[in-house]
């Protein structure tokens, strides 16, 4: 039982990080209906700026700079490329974001080189003891930040002009435009916000229990895809739920791999995708996603 609890708590703590990454996918999808593969390189960009600046200006200033930088990169990608892309379908725009991601990731990994960069966070490798279970402090913070951000987004979508504009765009872009919503601005701000979220996610992805930022970091962003999808691509609550489901599934399957050896060892990495398929079969738009209405 203690093992189960330990794994469960670990899973939730990993899930918090996935939720933060997934939230970035959700914000962009909500505003523009594009699946954003560039998110991985936004993560790298944010993390890289934090890692390079923290010895010079201290951690919190570096974090702010990283968030600003990633937001800027996100906004630039939208403004310079996606806005001007001549394509018909959202699917093709998704492929365009793959191209952008390759460009950015290649350059950033070249800059990172062969180093493993520490992010200089104040939590270090401290852990909290909850009875028999231990959890890294960084992960407690991550969970709190993810929850706070998700509440903030829920409120913002409901009560701010920006949120209403975004919801209106998601509902029906043409009508929203006719009503005076500036689509360009909505999409630009969504990308900037997603960039900022990516920097926050990068922070928690690269601190203890992982050793730091390096060229492999971007690969971890892939695991947030099933999280975003199974929660529902346009739901912030879904991002949190999806992140936690993926984190817990992965951790339990890895932790119990000796008992599950008949499934093949290393099932932990494939399991989230299996869960995703099952959930999508039951609910094709994810747990909390809105079903796309048929527009004729």
């Amino acid at each position, binding site marked *: 039982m203690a093992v189960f609890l330990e794994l469960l708590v670990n899973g939730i703590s990993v899930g918090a990080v996935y939720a933060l990454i997934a939230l970035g996918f959700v914000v962009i*999808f909500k505003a523009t*209906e594009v*699946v954003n593969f560039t998110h991985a390189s936004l993560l790298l960009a944010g993390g890289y700026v934090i890692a390079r600046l923290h010895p010079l200006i201290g951690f919190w200033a570096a974090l702010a700079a990283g968030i600003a930088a990633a937001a800027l990169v996100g906004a630039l990608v939208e403004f310079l*490329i996606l806005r*001007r*892309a*001549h*394509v*018909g*379908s*959202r*699917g*093709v725009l*998704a*492929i*365009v974001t*793959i*191209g*952008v*991601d*390759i*460009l*950015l990731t*290649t*350059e950033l990994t*070249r800059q990172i080189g062969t180093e493993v960069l520490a992010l200089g966070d104040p939590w270090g490798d401290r852990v909290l003891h909850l009875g028999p279970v231990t959890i890294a402090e960084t992960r407690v913070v991550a969970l709190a930040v993810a929850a706070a951000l998700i509440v903030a987004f829920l409120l913002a979508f409901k009560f701010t002009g920006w949120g209403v504009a975004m919801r209106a765009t998601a509902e029906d872009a043409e009508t929203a435009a006719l009503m005076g919503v500036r689509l360009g601005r909505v999409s630009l701000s969504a990308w900037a916000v997603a960039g900022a979220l990516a920097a926050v996610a990068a922070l928690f992805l690269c601190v203890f229990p992982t050793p730091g930022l390096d060229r492999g970091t971007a690969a971890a962003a*892939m695991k947030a*895809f*099933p999280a*975003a*999808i199974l929660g529902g*691509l346009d739901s912030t609550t879904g991002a949190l739920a999806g992140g936690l489901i993926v984190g817990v599934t992965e951790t339990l399957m890895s932790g119990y791999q000796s008992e599950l050896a008949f499934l*093949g*060892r*290393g*099932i932990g*990495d*494939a399991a989230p*995708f*299996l869960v*995703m*398929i099952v959930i*999508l*079969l039951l609910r*094709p*738009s*994810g747990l909390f996603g809105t079903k*796309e209405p*048929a*527009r*004729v």
Partner: protein
Amino acid sequence: MSEPVSEPVSEPTSEAATPVRDTPTTATSTTATPTAGTPAPGASRPLLAVPGITARTLRLVLWLAVVAVAVAVPFYLEGFWLQAGLFAMSAAIGAIGINLLTGATGQLSLGHAFFLAVGAYSYVYLSTDLGLPTPLAAVAAVIVAGLCGGVFSPIAGRLKGAYLGIATLALIFVGQHILFNAEPVTGGFNGRPVPPMELFGLVFADTPELVVLNVPFGSLERLWFLGIALLAGVAVFARGVLRGRPGLAMNTIRDHEIAAGVMGVPVARYRAGVFVLSSMYGGLAGVLVALVFQQVVPDYFGMLLSLDYLAMIVIGGLGSVAGAVAGAAFVSLLPQLLTRYSDALPLVAEPGSGGVSPAEAARILYGAAVVAVVLFLPGGLAGLATRLGRVRLKELRWAKSAPAPASRR
């Protein structure tokens, strides 16, 4: 050369009967009009003032030249080029398949590498363990890939757009998990050796030795012809599909699914059918790439391969066969060329010196190509070729016949 061994045949089409037409093959989806259906102006009309030379003859000469070059290549070029060409051919076959699905029908798929893996491993398993004759094993492998597509297609049919795209990611991750763990069938991390194809007594391997016109014909030289034949076969088939009724239906589904349904297109059946067909193309590409590799290893069939395929069809041109082939050639040849000629290229640094290495330059160029195509080149490389061709034709006509030609639209 020989007939294509394993051309997927699933739907009757009218491809062979399609007459020569001057139709642009690109379908850039900016309009809802299916471009494949536009009338073909200028077909067989005298092109130059010279009597007797028609667009048709010109085209024939052009194709003959292409074929002659393709046949001559193994007699001149060394193994590196042949292998690069074979990788490009395999990529082209796979890219045609995913272009049917993503380009023509509008279904995003990130799982194409999985179907390549199914094709490659099925070929090995069927020929080695079940002892099927190799050509039969290749055909069966393509069918198995199609079956796998068929098994997944209920899921594909239920999901739409982005959800489908990411659901197909599961194929990659689950697929690689199986490749690594189902050791009796897949050989685990080591993979398995690929038995050479044997067709009408000709073995596609280095032994027994074969010398044609004084040129030693090793496995790559022999496979070259097999690759050309397969590619030509599947390209013609896909062109038929795209230009015929199925193509129209697919484009309509892409442009407006509900409208397609209202117009009487059996949407669900088409979507499933295209998924299966595209999987079979993937399977065939897998068989060919396995024959070139001589050993299948699970690492190859990862996510990057799937992403490469998507990049190929965007760079080449969505929804067209020529585009898929051009994109495949671009994406698979670029890194190899840059690596090979890294010494001679000014911008590319010596490995390890801290500058942009050839591999990085290739990645950057390839990412930039995707971006550049959507920004400046709607229709991709194929669209560019069509437009260039059109401009040239216009110039020719203008030069020969004094009055300004009627504009095309």
